[in-house]
């Protein structure tokens, strides 16, 4: 029991020190989760993301870990919240977007990278008038990257979706992901997706500019590098150049189809 508590304390301390969104990003990340019938799944993948250092723990989760809030206490707490929210007439329906909403809109940075044709590409200036969906990943990613891109490819092919949506895939593994490799990878999903690369330093800087968690390949106990851990969020920017929402892994197609027309209308 004591060992468990010590382990929990260690975990909490580690979490506090490792995942401090403001310290890492200087970018306010909302603790709101996308609603829908997949809360449990979101939680599960969320935990995987946290383990990979991709998504910071929300303030609620930190408090829960710190206080050991579970069982009847948690139920009472949740019921009390539900009652208070019910009394105040607050509901998730009031949310403007289904994705994670930011506390304040943030202007899109405009770094210059190299596209898959070897040309210079300014991420904001060269995509004026479009919804930009910026995603940091790598082509040998086994799960999160292909799922995100497949979802976007399916959603954008739907009738009624705005035509002015640009998907910008920025590699976090420039040594492996040459422009040709990126193009081949993206063509599996859509020939319209834009692939971008640069030097290692440039890419780290771009991730920081977008307030993304910088991708790392942490070593295991024997010193062998593990799989690359990267930010699982898609950063969305409306045509007016402001970012209001983010979309963590996993994001369902219904979420995208609700939000993309709204974002496209913000000119």
């Amino acid at each position: 029991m004591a060992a468990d508590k010590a382990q929990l304390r260690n975990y909490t301390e580690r979490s506090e020190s490792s995942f401090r969104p403001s310290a890492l990003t200087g970018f306010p990340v909302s603790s709101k989760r996308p609603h829908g019938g997949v809360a449990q799944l979101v939680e599960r993948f969320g935990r995987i993301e946290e383990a990979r250092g991709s998504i910071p723990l929300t303030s609620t989760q930190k408090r829960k870990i710190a206080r050991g809030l579970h069982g009847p206490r948690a139920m009472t707490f949740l019921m009390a919240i539900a009652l208070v929210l019910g009394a105040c007439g607050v509901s998730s329906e009031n949310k403007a977007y289904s994705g994670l909403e930011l506390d304040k809109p943030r202007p899109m940075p405009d770094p210059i990278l190299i596209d898959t044709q070897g040309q210079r590409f300014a991420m904001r200036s060269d995509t004026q008038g479009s919804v930009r969906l910026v995603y940091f990943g790598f082509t040998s990613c086994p799960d999160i990257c292909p799922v995100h891109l497949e979802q976007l490819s399916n959603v954008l092919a739907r009738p009624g979706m705005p035509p002015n949506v640009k998907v910008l895939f920025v590699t976090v593994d420039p040594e492996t992901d040459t422009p040709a490799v990126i193009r081949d990878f993206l063509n599996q999903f859509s020939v319209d997706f834009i692939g971008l690369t640069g030097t290692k330093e440039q890419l780290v800087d771009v991730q920081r500019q977008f307030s993304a968690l910088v991708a790392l390949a942490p070593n295991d106990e024997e010193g062998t590098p593990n799989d690359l851990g990267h930010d699982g969020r898609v950063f969305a920017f409306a045509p007016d150049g402001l970012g209001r929402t983010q979309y963590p892994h996993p994001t369902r197609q219904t979420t995208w189809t609700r939000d993309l027309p709204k974002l496209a209308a913000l000119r």
Partner: protein
Amino acid sequence: MLLLISSYLIFQRRAPKGDDGETKKRRLFIISVLLLWAATDWPLGLLGASYLASAHMLQFLIYTMAVAPLFWLGIPEWMARRIAGRLRLYRLMGRIAQPVVGGVLFNFILIATHSPWAVDNFRTNQFGSFLMDFVWLIGGLLVWAPIVSPITEHRMTSYPGRMAYLFLALGVVPAVPAGFLTFAGFPLYAIYELAPRVHGLSATTDQQLAGLVMKLGGIPVVWGTIVALMYQWSEATRAESAASRAKNTALSAPEGFDQSNTEADQ
């Protein structure tokens, strides 16, 4: 699986002597257990639990349309009576073998276990996945009990009744969720929508495929059984009418009258 087969074989040592058809029943039982294994284990089990809605549906189909009826057909009557007697299940088995009970419970299980809520919550963990497989098997046993229960008095007796039951319980209701799956605009199940793609099969196509498997997959079994029942019914009717004709002829013929001569004259 091994435990199931070995306990079956050990139990069979106590079979009453001179019981015909034991080998056939043993084969059917072993086939049903092997099918259960194939539907539960890798690769179908893994694909159905985490990746493909179509694999999930194929599993459901194998459990309910193949494993369950073969399981019942593989159990000899004496064994079923002995087990039901020892576990005091005879009355319960009789109740659940009523067509209304079996049909309603099966279709309730079918709809409940294919709801997005159930799939997304149960399939995400090993125990939930196991529970879902187990409930499907129970559902299959329930729906087939009125037709092929090893305890003969629990079976439905009327041929048209059996055919109508099969059509209603296994042919009509499954078309409803199958329609939802086939014609839904979006993927209904988050677990399959957000899983890494298998062989480039998109989530929507996979779901449509699942709907088709649900709608069409059961047709050969259901209609095959209906055709077999129809054939049995016509054979039984023919045998009955032949018997009654023979009885009438025997009653109407005067004593000492040679029937063979009369038939030859005709």
